[in-house]
């Protein structure tokens, strides 16, 4: 992806989301640059997942507009997003537990190219198996391909989910706290993987541990109480007084 860094891949205009009377997200306007690794940070309950879900199509915004590559995608059904070129991993691990690791990725790989194909044997459709195998190598699960997904360790399941997200060859990859619940060891492996992935495509990464993303991302968005508090490069954010105040006293874990 050698697009100029000023090229905007995703834009939100005053998007908001309420649950009943509770406003979880309010008037967030932001632009995400193509090819960049952008992190969305903020304390627990800041509205990161809500914002993430608006970007990835799991939730429709109550107000505002989301544009992807110039196209208005506001309120489109979830499954359309994969077809547009947006893929995601959930904050809570989300795989097909009773299918093998390889079948998990293979199902993801065939998603955009088979529509209600009830006749051809999938064992003969080798392109999807090859895609699955290639991605399993990328996320480091090749040696586990024959196991049921439910037999994987937590960290491995998260990696599997990312492998599945990559299967649609997305131009935009959205990750919601991919290191949640991971050991320091697993976290390091995951961050390495994310850096590698981000060198080839646009990545938006939600994380509440600021320290983890400071060193790797190009830009940061800080959410607090459902509002966009600050936006900028890691250095700008580090110097930002308001951000300091929000994070002050909050011991990072």
């Amino acid at each position, binding site marked *: 992806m050698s697009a100029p860094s000023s090229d905007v891949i995703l834009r939100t205009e005053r998007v908001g989301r309420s649950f009943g009377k509770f406003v979880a997200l309010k008037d967030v306007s932001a632009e995400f640059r193509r090819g960049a690794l952008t992190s969305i940070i903020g304390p627990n309950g800041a509205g990161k997942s809500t914002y993430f879900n608006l970007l990835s199509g799991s939730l429709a915004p109550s107000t505002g507009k989301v544009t992807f590559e110039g196209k208005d995608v506001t309120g489109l059904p979830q*499954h359309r997003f994969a077809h547009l070129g947006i893929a995601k991993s959930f904050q809570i691990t989300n795989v097909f537990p009773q299918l093998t690791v390889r*079948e998990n990725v293979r*199902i*993801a790989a*065939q998603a955009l190219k088979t529509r*209600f194909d009830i*006749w051809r044997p999938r*064992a003969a459709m080798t392109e999807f198996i090859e895609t699955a195998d290639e991605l399993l190598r990328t996320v480091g699960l090749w040696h586990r391909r024959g196991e049921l997904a439910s037999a994987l360790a937590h960290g491995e399941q998260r990696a599997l989910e990312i492998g599945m997200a990559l299967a649609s060859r997305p131009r935009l990859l959205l990750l919601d706290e991919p290191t949640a619940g991971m050991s320091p060891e697993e976290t390091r492996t995951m961050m390495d993987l994310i850096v590698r992935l981000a060198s080839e495509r646009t990545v938006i990464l939600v994380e509440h541990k600021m320290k983890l993303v400071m060193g790797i991302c190009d830009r940061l968005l800080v959410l607090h109480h459902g509002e966009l508090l600050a936006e900028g490069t890691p250095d700008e954010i580090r110097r930002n007084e308001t951000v300091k105040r929000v994070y002050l006293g909050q011991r990072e874990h």
Partner: protein
Amino acid sequence: MSAEFATSRMETAPASTGARLLDLAERHRVLLAGIFLLVFPLVLPFHALAIVILTYGLYALGFNLLFGYLGLLSFGHAALFGGGAYLCGISLVHFGAPWWLGILAGTLGGVLIATLIGSLAIRTRGIYFAMVTLALAQCVYYLFYQAVDWTGGENGLRLPSVTAISPFGIPLNFVDPLTRYYVVAAFVFASLFFLSRILASPFGAVIEGIRENEARARACGYDVTRTRLVAFVLSGAFCGLAGALQALHLAIVPVEMLAIETSGLAVMMCLLGGMGTFFGPFVGAAVFLILENLVSVYTVHWQLVVGVVFIVCVLFFPRGIWGSILHWSRR
């Protein structure tokens, strides 16, 4: 409880001889089914019983596609089975259709009713789906019950008995129970072949994926609602065909075929045999119907006995009979 035939399964090395045999059987499941269908009447000399085992088994198979593989519990499948039977019957009685056209009409009837019920019900989940399908099936029951001129109402619809048929120019005596069995078996074999193709296709993988994790399937790019509808309609085709075969066999369509008990029967047979397994529905239908026939010779309270057997099975063998056999031999 994953599909026993998913390609994904074949990678794990079989542990025991039993497992290896089963894996072999899985790869040739349609061939195996064919052999079994050929010898079944020799094992079970009551051919009329063998025929209803096949028709109910096929009905349960259609139900299993939705329940076992996709994970949707319908309480309205009687509408597809009975509807198929009625449409077959109506085409014979009122339009003088030949037997094969009756079968086609029944199958398409199942498809049609499934499309109608499906498009209304698939937006709901879990218990709501079960209730909506149940309510809609009751509507279908009422409709057929009231249309006395077409359906014979509560007396059921009597079919002209089909005596001689000549598929592909081969004259066959349809009155002979064994011949009739093999005609029905041919349709069941074709259905099993078709089901096997569906399960091995990309679509087969998708429905299992949706059963496993709907949100993930959506995120992968699958239109879950449409996929559900397609599965429901396919299920309707199998159940409609089963109903049509049943109608030809019995030469009558009793209105009870549309009743809620018939819907419950599919659930029971499927659970008894093993949901989400290829042969489970037939095993369930066989066990249920053979038990019913055996016990009712000795006591009028056969339903009690069958009920107890069912409860014991569900409590102690939640995978069903065939499902448990598969599970044990895999360990």
